[in-house]
């Protein structure tokens, strides 16, 4: 297009022509695409043709009652251990921020201990706790006891699993919650106090809801990690998903298909958890940007239909707060 053409349109419409430039070529992208397509084809081919995958066996056991029972126990362990972890972790976080050095120090020691030893060792420890304390007494410290229990009966494998996973998780959650509380601007606390909120109300109504934005993403990741870490308790014969699969292949020697069954279930649950996490984060992100973030469906649709114009124009974003 010559300059005189542009000048003509400018004169006619008052607006210069839109730029129609030859796009930059990206040969590297084409090479990468070709390599990925080849690798995918090879993997797909092997999955479809290697008879040792035994997809028939996978399908046969996928909904078997033993696998499903194991899955349910895995979900229960994850939920209970996370609830313990979050609740106790929040307490530890508040303790850690206490001005009393003994209170904050004991929280520090707890985190140091439970983060400093492998989870697998902690699981074995709780399983063998009866060797250390054969009897559990409830009563006045150094005084008479009212309730006696046999530790072997009290701490079943499932109880040991819950204790190990939950108490270990509390140490990690304590750090996450503490970071969240510290991320909230001090001015928020001052404004709330100036309005007459008590310390507790300030924490509950003002600080924690804002801390959630920082706390939630890592908590979602912790939940997903927890789901997978429950597989560790198979070493103390808790029949969760992995141990259920192991029990089956110990008998029929179909190791690979049954490990696939377990893996696919883990993938399904982590996918569902990830979607839930996305919506939770969206809820607690209220007010942090000017636009309500898109739902997952809107995002997928946006990606499919406008991949050429990936930068969706959002008015106002990135501007100064003083419009």
């Amino acid at each position, binding site marked *: 297009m010559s300059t005189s053409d542009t000048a003509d349109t400018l004169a006619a419409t008052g607006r210069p022509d839109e730029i129609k430039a030859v796009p930059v070529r990206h040969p590297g992208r084409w090479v990468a695409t070709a390599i990925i397509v080849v690798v995918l084809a090879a993997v797909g081919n092997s999955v479809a043709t290697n008879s040792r995958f035994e997809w028939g066996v996978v399908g046969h056991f996928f909904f078997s009652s033993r696998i499903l029972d194991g899955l349910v126990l895995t979900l229960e362990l994850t939920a209970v251990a996370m609830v313990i972890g979050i609740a106790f972790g929040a307490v530890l976080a508040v303790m850690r921020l206490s001005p009393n050095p003994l209170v904050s120090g004991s929280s520090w020691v707890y985190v140091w201990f439970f983060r400093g030893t492998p989870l697998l060792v902690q699981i074995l420890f709780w399983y063998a706790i009866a060797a250390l304390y054969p009897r559990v007494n409830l009563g006045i410290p150094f005084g008479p006891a009212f309730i006696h229990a046999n530790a072997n009966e009290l701490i079943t494998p499932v109880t040991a699993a819950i204790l190990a996973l939950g108490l270990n998780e509390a140490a990690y959650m304590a750090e996450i919650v503490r970071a969240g509380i510290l991320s909230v601007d001090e001015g928020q606390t001052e404004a709330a106090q*100036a309005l007459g909120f008590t310390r507790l109300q300030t924490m509950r109504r003002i600080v924690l809801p804002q801390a959630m934005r920082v706390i939630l993403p890592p908590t979602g990741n912790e939940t997903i990690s927890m789901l997978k870490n429950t597989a560790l308790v198979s070493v103390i014969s808790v029949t969760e998903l992995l141990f259920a699969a192991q029990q089956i292949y110990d008998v029929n020697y179909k190791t690979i298909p049954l490990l696939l069954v377990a893996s696919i279930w883990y993938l399904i649950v982590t996918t569902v958890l990830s979607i839930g996490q996305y919506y939770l984060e969206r809820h607690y992100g209220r007010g942090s940007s000017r636009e309500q973030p898109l739902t997952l469906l809107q995002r997928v649709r946006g990606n499919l239909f406008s991949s050429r114009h990936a930068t969706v124009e959002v008015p106002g974003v990135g501007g100064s707060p*003083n419009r």
Partner: protein
Amino acid sequence: MSEPMVKAEGVHKSFGRLEVLKGITLEVQPREVMCVLGPSGSGKSTFLRCINHLEKIDAGRLSVDGELVGYRQSGDKIYELRDSEVARKRSEIGMVFQRFNLFPHMTALENVAMAPMRVKNIPKAEALARGREQLERVGLADKIKSYPAQLSGGQQQRVAIARALAMEPKLILFDEPTSALDPELVGEVLDAMRRLAEEGMTMLVVTHEIGFAREVGDTVVFMDDGVVVETGKPREVFANPRHERTRSFLSKVL
């Protein structure tokens, strides 16, 4: 003469070894608008924060409406107040901050209605209705559903004023309310404050806005280096500063 709303006698405050307030003595009468001027670091904001006990004073006496701030006197002994008692007293004193400090996870209306609901236990419907009135009063009737991030600085500060008003305070403290604003937004906030002053609100305003102090202030206090250097009617202080430090400060800002 009625009891002063704020009465300070020899108020001292140190942060570590740095003494920020070196004996502040002043009185604010009910319905009075007092503007506190002075260079940064002179202790104006710290003094304001002492009045609602966001900072503890080290020595002297500070009372609001005849009651000690943060303490209770019984005979010769002084007792520290419990958290809930301090909170109740704070709820009677409004405060507007330099950086607005609106709650970002709540809409403008929720920001305004929150404290009446949670602190004064006013039923939700009534608190929301009153919140709407307060927002109308500062000219933001169309912004009740906006989050703070969607508002301009001037609008945010007006929401903050409405939030303080919703608690029906007997005194409002303003801590440099226009210092974080773009110049063209300062006027709308000062207008809202001027209307409050006309309605008879008792106000203690730390500010750099000489024009506002001159027009709206009943009294001007000039602070420097932790002490009150000069007090008087705005006309007298601005036209005829008696103290050298006031004179040199005014020559720089006027």
